[in-house]
């Protein structure tokens, strides 16, 4: 082959057109005819095409090196296994998302008041029960039940006393907080209301506080706010802030 045979600019551009399929049809026809009949011409064109291919291919090769740098790195070369694991992970992730979503829905929707109530509600510690021979034996006997968490028993004993002294703020107060501790909010409210009707009661701040909590639990926000406002406790102010 005559490598040093001259290739004119014109021939180069003709081969480019042929190579790129941009040759008009009649030109292509003549060109292909000459390729068939002129062996030397054929060799020359082939060689020019080799150059065109060579340049393109080498350029591509160098591009591939660039691309290779940008392949996302995988820690795990066990592709299939990692795919399965990925799938498992996706399943778990999806499940987790659902659980979290449902949880959030329940948590947020499940009444923020309820949450506030749970945060703040602690049963009244009750009164100290000393071993003494007071006439209030039944009252303190019930107080023992109350402190032991047996609210129902305490309530039943106190209610007997309450029947005798319906306006006694102490009894009304403790029946109220006992019902509240027993999660019977509706019954707690009237007793607590009776307690606060005794304006000089020592339990007044506590009664307003627990009344506020009771209303909160029942989602009676305005009444809860009114009750908390009358209670001088720090907790009441915190809850009021949270309710805003």
């Amino acid at each position, binding site marked *: 082959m005559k*490598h*040093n045979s001259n290739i004119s600019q014109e021939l180069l551009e003709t081969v480019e057109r042929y190579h790129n399929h941009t040759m008009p049809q009649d030109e292509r026809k003549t060109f292909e005819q000459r390729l068939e009949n002129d062996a030397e011409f054929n060799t020359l064109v082939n060689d020019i095409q080799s*150059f065109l291919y060579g*340049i*393109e*291919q*080498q350029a*591509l090769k160098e*591009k591939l090196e660039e691309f290779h740098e940008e392949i996302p790195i995988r820690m795990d070369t066990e*592709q299939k296994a990692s795919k399965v694991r990925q799938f498992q992970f996706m399943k778990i992730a999806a499940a987790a998302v659902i659980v979290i979503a449902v949880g959030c829905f329940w948590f947020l929707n499940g009444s923020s008041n309820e949450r506030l109530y749970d945060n703040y509600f602690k049963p009244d510690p009750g009164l100290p029960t000393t071993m003494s021979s007071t006439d209030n034996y039944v009252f303190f006997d019930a107080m023992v039940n109350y402190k032991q968490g047996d609210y129902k028993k305490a309530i039943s004993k106190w209610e007997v006393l309450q029947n005798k002294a319906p306006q006694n703020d102490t009894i009304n107060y403790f029946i109220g907080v006992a019902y509240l501790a027993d999660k019977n909010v509706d019954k707690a409210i009237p007793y607590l209301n009776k307690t606060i009707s005794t304006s000089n009661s020592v339990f007044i701040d506590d009664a307003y506080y627990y009344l506020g909590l009771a209303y909160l639990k029942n989602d009676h926000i305005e009444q809860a706010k009114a009750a908390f406002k009358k209670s001088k406790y720090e907790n009441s102010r915190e809850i009021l802030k949270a309710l805003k």
Partner: protein
Amino acid sequence: MSQAQPIDSQSTLVNAIKSNDSIALKSLYTSNYHKIEHLVLKNSGTKEHAKDIYQEAFISVWNNIKNDSFVPQTETALQGYLYQIAKNKWMDVLRSKRFKQTIAVSKLNHFEPADTAHEKNNDDIFKENRLEGIMNVFKTMGSPCKELLTTFYFEKKSLRDIAEELQIEENTARNKKYRCMEKLRELVITSQK
């Protein structure tokens, strides 16, 4: 990952590859590599082997698309074709004498025996050597010419655009390109002496 693409996107991909669209080439390249790497690593190869084989296969696919000897028929045909070619190439490597000398035969059972032996005639071998010679010379060619030829022949930029970028006349760019081509031919000739 290589997701199933509708056939029309395959033909879009083919056209993009034919015009050496950098984005299409890159996405085809990067999204199919790991499958080959997995295959090669599972079959006595290293990551280096995987890369070499994959790039060889990629260039073959590119060539076959360019000269229309491969036309995708199904949705993921191109990706599958790339995998198949890489796999065949790796099988050839495994069967080669040099490789067998160092790797226990028992490890190769995974592959079935050769179904088609590739027989090359002298013409093909001559052409291949010629192409390789040109590529090697072009690889080491000086920057201005190499760049110009790459932009014109690989990136398929028009002479007008190239001229604009270089802030020269279009005709000057055309002459430059011709002279660079002549230079490359010269370099190839001297490299063979």
